[in-house]
């Protein structure tokens, strides 16, 4: 398969990248790992006149501790995030999400920013990041804005990013002292798979009751969605298997799945129930 022709730009700084995106706007697409964009170009779904490659902008590839949390450069690959000791120790659900993306080969190219910007409802990065309360840093030639990751998604393939915007980083606050989180993905295969459903759960305890609960469902709505009834059922209660069954039932009711070639809506709803319960149990077990 041949790629269409394009002008190729390789800025070395975010400033230059933003300037280019500002000048070129709709005629340009940012290129990071290429595992989504180049595929779409090969299939003739997209044919941008310009590609602005972000791969030589060093700060985008940095992962660092910031305010006791983490700052993930937008250009970090799924493999780098999955293998990072800082991520595995403190944000295990994020390491899980990163490690289930695509295949080991894809993970060595695909970036967190690409997975967020492509806004697929079944994507692996959004649920655990949203469960951890992540924010994204968006930059363009006029400046920077920071927003909750949840607010980025508008629909399948659609985000609030304008044609000149670039994702610069993902910010994660330190998880609460007594908290745990988990990410589970269900696919027909164990690898190279787009989720039938996926679930991320985050629980924060104070004394013996749940203070914080975030449950994020993937592939059952146009965007990764929170499960508000499930969260409501959990907050203020003492964790127990029976409570988790109740919350899982509520999550299944919150979900808005459709029938498609991967699964029926009914099966998806069923699996949300199962995965939510399991994710909650694992999240609880991870609380020290």
């Amino acid at each position, binding site marked *: 398969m041949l790629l269409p022709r394009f002008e*190729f730009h390789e800025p070395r700084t975010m400033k230059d990248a933003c300037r280019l995106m500002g000048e070129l706007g709709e005629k340009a697409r940012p290129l990071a790992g*290429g595992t989504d964009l180049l595929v779409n170009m*090969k299939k003739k779904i997209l044919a941008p006149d310009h590609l602005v*490659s972000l791969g030589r902008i060093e700060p985008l590839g940095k992962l660092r501790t910031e305010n006791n949390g983490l700052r993930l450069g937008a250009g970090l690959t799924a493999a780098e995030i999955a293998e990072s000791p800082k991520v595995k120790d403190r944000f295990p659900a994020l390491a899980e999400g990163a490690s289930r993306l695509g*295949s080991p*080969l894809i993970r*060595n190219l695909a970036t967190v920013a690409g997975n967020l910007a492509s806004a697929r409802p079944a994507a692996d990065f959004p649920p655990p990041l949203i469960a951890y309360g992540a924010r994204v840093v968006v930059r363009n030639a006029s400046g920077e804005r920071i927003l909750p990751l949840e607010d980025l998604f508008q629909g399948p393939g659609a985000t609030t990013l304008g044609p000149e915007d670039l994702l610069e980083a993902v910010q994660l606050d330190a998880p609460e002292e007594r908290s745990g989180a988990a990410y589970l993905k269900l696919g027909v295969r*164990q*690898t190279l798979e787009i989720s039938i459903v996926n679930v991320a759960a985050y629980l924060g305890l104070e004394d013996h009751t749940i203070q914080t609960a975030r449950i994020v469902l993937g592939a059952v709505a146009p965007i990764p969605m929170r499960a508000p009834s499930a969260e409501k059922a959990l907050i203020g209660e003492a964790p127990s298997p029976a409570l988790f069954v109740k919350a899982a039932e509520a999550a299944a009711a919150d979900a808005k799945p459709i029938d498609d070639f991967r699964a029926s809506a009914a099966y998806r709803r069923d699996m949300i129930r199962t995965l939510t319960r399991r994710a909650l149990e694992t999240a609880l077990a991870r609380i020290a």
Partner: protein
Amino acid sequence: MTQLITLTINDRTYDLAVPANRTLADLLRYDLGLTGTKKGCEVGDCGSCTVLLDGRPVNSCLVLAVQASGKTVTTIEGLETDEGLHPLQQAFVDHGAIQCGFCTSGMILSGKHLLDGNPSPDEAETRIAISGNLCRCTGYQKIVEAIRAAGKSTQE
């Protein structure tokens, strides 16, 4: 759209003029005649185009040659030396892990990356390491055995 790039491929440095829309896979096969790297699906699903880019296995069909400028590439051709086959290649032969051979380059390079970091992988770790490489012939069993055996043999 043509750019000048410098690549180190199998320890040799190449200065090349390439169009921006040439993939690394096409560069290796058509411009350099290194046809050990295969093209199967061309969209990152089959792994037959696997090469090591700065030591990490990637789908070369999804890397632009211009993105690889300044980087190090290892293809299957880079494993054999004057002394003979790389232990991994020999293990594949010895264990009957090659039928049509189309997946083999990618399997060996994914296996090499695994063994470089973990000389004694268990079965699950080995299967995960090759989970981006599809084989239509062998059913994977002998490939897994060959990789694990090669790890053991280089330890002895």
